[in-house]
């Protein structure tokens, strides 16, 4: 084995690391726009899925333009509101992309994005994103509300790494379907959110859905996420609903 001087070792490492760093930064710079676009498309698709649109996303050959087209067609308006229900000058999409940092702020200081859906000038539906922490990692979702801003029209949830077959079931239809038709406010107009009930929800109770057997922590985390994220919209929801 040849021996190398210490100087050689230092110079060799320095050169190697510099080359690697330069190459990687170059690649990262080149690919960044494409990667960010992927994330935007995914968010748009999620918003559309909560109102039952973009169902052909996996069949079309050019998914990106399909999603962009659908999003442009159905999402007619979007804005950001604050805790007091006032509109804030900000882009709803950008706020949604950074929602994970937004929900760490106190409820009163957060910005709340709203996406308005309407098909052929029909009744409006309002889509709001929710974010939270599951058992193993982040969970998130999108909740679409009817024009009364009380009844849930549809909900989609997803997760990064919940337990397959247990917590991961939050991304399946059997779990999400029962959310439709449930209401967020009780008869007195008090915000009660949706309760995820272990051992079977009472079907006549408008604020309950079934939890997942064996997925209690994820179910509870989801309940907390929905409550935490929707509570801040209360002022806004009431204002719109009374108008």
């Amino acid at each position: 084995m040849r021996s190398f001087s210490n100087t050689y070792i230092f110079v060799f490492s320095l050169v190697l690391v510099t080359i690697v760093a330069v190459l990687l930064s170059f690649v990262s710079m080149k690919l960044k726009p494409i990667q960010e676009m992927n994330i935007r498309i995914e968010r748009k698709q999620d918003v559309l899925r909560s109102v039952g649109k973009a169902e052909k996303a996996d069949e079309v050959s050019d998914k990106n333009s399909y999603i962009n087209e659908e999003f442009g067609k159905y999402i007619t308006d979007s804005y950001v509101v604050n805790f007091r229900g006032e509109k804030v000058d900000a882009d709803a999409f950008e706020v949604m992309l950074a929602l994970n940092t937004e929900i760490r702020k106190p409820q009163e200081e957060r910005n709340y994005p709203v996406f308005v859906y309407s098909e052929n000038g029909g009744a409006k539906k309002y889509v709001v994103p929710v974010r939270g922490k599951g058992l193993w990692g982040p969970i998130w979702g999108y909740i679409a509300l009817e024009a009364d801003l009380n009844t849930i029209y549809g909900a989609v949830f997803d997760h990064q790494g919940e337990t397959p077959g247990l917590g991961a079931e939050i991304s399946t239809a059997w779990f999400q379907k029962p959310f439709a038709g449930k209401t967020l406010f009780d008869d007195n107009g008090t915000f009660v959110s949706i309760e995820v009930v272990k051992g079977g929800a009472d079907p006549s109770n408008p604020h309950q859905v079934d939890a997942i057997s064996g997925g209690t922590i994820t179910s509870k985390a989801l309940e907390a996420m929905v409550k935490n994220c929707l509570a801040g919209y209360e002022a806004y929801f009431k204002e719109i609903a009374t108008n």
Partner: protein
Amino acid sequence: MSKEKEPLFSAKNLKLLSEPLGQSNPITVQVLGICSALAVTVKLKPSIVMALSVAVVLAVSNVVISLLRKMIPPRIRIIVQLVVIAFMVILVDQVLKAYAYEVSKQLSVFVGLIITNCIIMGRLEAFAMGNRPWPAFLDGLGNAAGYGVILIIVAFFRELLGSGTILDMKVIPQSFYDAGYVNNGMMILPPMALVVVGIIIWVQRSRRKNLIED
């Protein structure tokens, strides 16, 4: 350099490709890279992408280390190998995020964890440090193929029995489900991957008696 004119696909070189598929398979014989074999084999598609990613990382790292082998000071060789592997892994990860976003989400951290895949460091240390670039390239491809084949076999059975699909296409007819057949939820969990790998090892060793240790 004794033989300068060795043909590109000499018997010796071909052996570098074929041996890891069978009698020196990295997963079933050397029992390396098990972690990722358990984690990504729920569905076929991510497994194929994972196998390809490992092939790119392993083949290129092998060639780079082989080219540098006379320049790398032995005292820091492990660090140099790691830098090269990490470079390739980050590259693959970035490309997947840009061009195969869905799959990169399914693979999540496991692309990054290719860095810790023992097969790669093992081949760099055992082969690339002492051989010329072309054999090192073949060795890398061979071992990646040996790894990939097992991944794909495991994923095939797990997806078929666990989800009733192959490459996300339904293969088990609806009439089976109507007749009471249910997908085996156990197959989606990592322990069953270990069982499938175990069965493959069992089959392989009962056919090749020379692999059996006493």
